[in-house]
């Protein structure tokens, strides 16, 4: 698997570190406990396109949001997590 970093170009997956589901959002500090349980522990874990965080540890040190098919490893899009550059 190779990931196309907007800054560094196409690089092997061994250069990146995986964090996980990029759709989860930290709830409001005084949101009910259930919202926090959901945020910390529960995941959709889809078989198909999955937006996920990758960190380019051996490259630009940027956090990326990669949309990848979890059944085939096909990558549909890559952008920086801050929303700037798109590959």
């Amino acid at each position, binding site marked *: 698997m190779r990931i196309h970093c907007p800054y560094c170009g196409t690089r092997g997956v061994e250069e990146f570190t995986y964090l996980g589901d990029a759709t989860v959002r930290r709830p409001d500090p005084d949101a009910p406990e259930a919202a926090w349980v959901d945020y910390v*522990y529960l995941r959709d874990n889809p078989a198909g396109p999955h937006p996920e965080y990758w960190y380019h540890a051996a490259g630009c040190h940027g956090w990326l949001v990669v949309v990848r098919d979890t059944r085939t490893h096909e990558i549909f899009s890559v952008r920086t997590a801050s929303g700037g550059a798109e590959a």
Partner: protein
Amino acid sequence: MSSDRYSFLSVLREALRGQTGWKPAWRKADPQESYDVVIVGGGGHGLATAYYLARRYGIRRVAVVEKSWLGNGNIGRNTTIVRSNYLLAGNVPFYECSMKLWEGLEQDINYNAMVSQRGVLNLFHNDGQRNAYTRRGNAMRLHGVDAQLLDAAAVRRKLPFLDFDNARFPIQGGLLQQRGGTVRHDAVAWGYARAADRLGVDIIENCEVTGMRITDGRVEGVETTRGFIGAKKVGLACAGNSSRVAALAGLRLPIESHVLQAFVTEGLKPFIDCVVTFGAGHFYISQSDKGGLVFGGDIDGYNSYAQRGNMPVVEDVCEGGMALMPRIGRVRMLRQWGGLMDMSMDGSPIIDRTPVDQLYLNAGWCYGGFKATPASGLCFAHLLARDEPHPVATAYRLDRFARGAVIDEKGMGAQPNLH
């Protein structure tokens, strides 16, 4: 005694009859209209559950519904290691229960599963690791589980060819559980399937569950590619696909699916007589009875439903192997494959009711559910039959995450790829 019992006499009789009298190990059952219990997933855990339901709890109107053929899931893809060398109180009694069931399994189900208590040796390479393993060994012994701390000389007598004086990772000793070892993985599926079938359980292969019929918060059966099957109770034992199947009932689980790879080399003369794990990298190895070296390492580390992995992990595992036992460097790799792990948020499993009435969940086995197969089946059967957790599985509750009662052996937090 039924005539199709496997024994020395039956082998002799069939030898004289030209092997014409053997029956298929299990019937190819067609789905009936309804059952008392439908188990989704014909892996080790689903089949063991069905067997213990029929055998120990007297519930025989049971179906196991499997989307593929029996043994295509992780039960036929794992590296066959069994052990009960856990640290935490929620885990040790459960895995020790499993170990005891392994010890009597073949007599119980009348099937040769090649249970081999050849020992599991976890190596350590520095003082910190020695302390951690000492503590683990003590925790095991306090629970009545066997554990032995070996020094470097004792390990050297056992496995003289390891790279003891490696400059970075010298081997200082290891924690040995002699009762651990290996079990022929697919024979476990076949053996439980045969034993359950003989007790009247229907094993329905090539039948995928595609939906759940739920009325007023209560499950009434499953929609499948072979039609609707009614059930008083439904038990999910879908390993790497747990999230997908639970989603059919509107549930979200504290689980991510990840891929784990395994490797087998060409056959060699016997030289590794136990399971060995490298303490300074991701590598473990044993030698199968055919002579092939069976080894593996870490999960690939990202969500995956592809039953295949990526090259960097192959490289990492092989590097670990070379660091530990350089002599395997010239051995050729024959096969390599991947399986889907249901990695839970604390690295421990779930055997519990769900918010849907009469729907039960068995999931979150991560990369270590093979050793759990007998106890998982027993405890899940207990829960399905009695509606209360088995005494050795009381910690495996689904609500433990919300309660903060996680069972995190490695202390990694809610990050599935680190467990």
